[in-house]
């Protein structure tokens, strides 16, 4: 017995006409009629998942398959299997960025360098956002991977191609694109350092590094030292913690660098993401510094790329501390527009002091989830940042005593 009532509104046989590839759906059976998986061999229907706890199954169906399922008396309801995403319009409210926009701040004119796979400057959301770009890979400046464009959209996308839905954290910011990673997503440490030099020469105020290496670091490797040096020149550097969690001692370089803001990833409901790398650093310091949303984030898709779960021609969804880090860079841009005199240590301290404690270990969440409005309001008072303590001696077995202070020698 066929019944329209068992179909989710908008789902119909006619809506599937011409959809040769089919459509993903979730089917709920009448409680007394749950079939075994083999019984689901219906023409036009392929089983994707058979749930054990619920009387439901996930399927891929053609129009003919939907017609048969609709007529099947054992089936109670059919929904489209909608993709689950933390849209930017959900992620930015999670840390109160819209509240700061409402005060008139969009990061207008703040210069943010994105050291990544390049930026698709022809994307509608990024048109006129890219002030300068350079290619340090030899591949050419275009983003052949998509990662850099996704990151750029989180920082400063205008949301033009989505009616403002996928607006970035600081849509007024100006982007400086240094391509330091190739289309395969890889590169060399020395190329990233060259990108840092370029960013310094461009006079940027913020640098975003959604990249890193595996292996616990004590923050004295060349890339970490280079990041510390950039911060010493008055530039805020936001670095990804890494995706090697949930074990401890999984923060590599440059996440272990002392001076940058190291960013871990959390979900919209305030859970630290399993994959987010955990501290301490190899020499025992607390990292990350903060966490921000980095799970299933929808942002700009570079033309012709397939990175992440593609939403449409202009957007794709991805997870990682790569996605949480540009949230921080955008947040910093908002702060620097509002308070141009803030120095990097003050920015870092303010973000940490005003962060929302999510209840996790400091090695997982740092100070907690950064909050744009609380940072703007400087909740907790205008304390001056304490001096950075000297690094403690290595404490882990197998971690040799050594030259943790060597980094100071190479500072200008």
């Amino acid at each position, binding site marked *: 017995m066929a019944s329209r009532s068992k179909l989710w509104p908008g789902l119909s046989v006619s809506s599937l006409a011409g959809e040769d590839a089919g459509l993903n759906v979730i089917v709920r059976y009448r409680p007394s009629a749950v079939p075994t998986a083999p019984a689901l061999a219906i023409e036009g229907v392929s089983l994707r998942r058979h749930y054990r706890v619920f009387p439901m199954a996930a399927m891929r169906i053609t129009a003919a398959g939907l017609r048969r399922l609709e007529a099947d008396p054992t089936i109670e309801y059919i929904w489209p299997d909608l993709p689950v995403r933390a849209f930017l319009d959900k992620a930015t409210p999670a840390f109160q960025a819209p509240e700061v926009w409402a005060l008139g701040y969009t990061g207008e004119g703040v210069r943010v360098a994105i050291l*990544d796979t390049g930026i698709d400057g022809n994307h509608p959301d990024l048109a006129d956002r890219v002030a300068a770009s350079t290619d340090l890979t030899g591949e050419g400046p275009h983003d052949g991977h998509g990662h850099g464009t*996704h990151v750029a959209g989180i920082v400063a996308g205008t949301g033009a191609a989505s009616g403002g839905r996928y607006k970035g954290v600081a849509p007024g910011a100006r982007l400086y694109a240094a391509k330091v*990673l190739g289309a395969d*997503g*890889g*590169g*060399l*440490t*020395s190329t990233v*350092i*060259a990108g*840092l*030099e370029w960013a*310094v020469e461009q006079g940027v105020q913020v640098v975003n590094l959604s*990249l*890193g*290496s*595996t*292996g*616990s*670091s*004590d923050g*004295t*490797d*060349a*890339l970490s030292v*280079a990041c510390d*040096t*950039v911060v010493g020149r008055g530039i805020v550097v936001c670095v*990804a913690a*890494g*995706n*090697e969690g949930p074990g401890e*001692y*999984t923060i*590599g*370089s440059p996440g272990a660098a002392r001076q940058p803001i190291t960013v871990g990833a959390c979900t919209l409901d305030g859970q630290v993401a399993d*994959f987010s790398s955990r501290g301490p650093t*190899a*020499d025992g310091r607390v990292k990350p510094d903060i966490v921000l949303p980095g799970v299933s984030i929808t942002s700009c898709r570079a033309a012709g790329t397939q990175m*992440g779960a593609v939403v449409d021609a202009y957007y794709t969804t*991805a*997870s*990682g*501390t*790569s*996605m949480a880090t540009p949230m921080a860079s955008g947040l910093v841009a908002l702060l620097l527009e509002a308070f141009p005199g803030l120095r990097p240590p003050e920015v870092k301290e303010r973000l940490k002091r005003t962060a929302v404690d999510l209840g996790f270990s400091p090695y997982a969440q740092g100070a907690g989830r950064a909050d744009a409005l609380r940072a703007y309001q400087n909740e907790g008072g205008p304390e001056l940042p304490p001096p950075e303590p000297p690094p403690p001696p*290595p404490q*882990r077995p*197998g*971690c*040799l*005593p*050594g*030259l*943790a202070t*060597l980094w100071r*020698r*190479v500072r*200008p």
Partner: protein
Amino acid sequence: MLSVEIQANPAARPTGRQRLEGGDQAMGARLDPELRSRLRREPDASVRLIVGVKGDLDALAKEAARSGAVVHRRLSLIHALAIGATGRQALALARAPWVEWIEEDRKVRLLDQRTGGE
């Protein structure tokens, strides 16, 4: 995610210059003992390195080139050279008085989850 290919157990083998041993300093540059042993084991293999130097960067880049290394970048931010060399050439460089430290020019990767586990 980009990885350091030489590290099988990241948690057990921290990176950074704290791994350098005093004995390595006696031979001139500070050189990671694991990297040094690899260079000795594979003297003809090519390796990418970052070499911290003391002195004029341009002049020392020419000096490094005279030793047979290929200078890829001058990294003024950390006063270092990014070079390509054989293991034998790298060990010779490590004895030069103007070389302060040497570390592998390690690979880095973007940190999204799709590629993060590579």
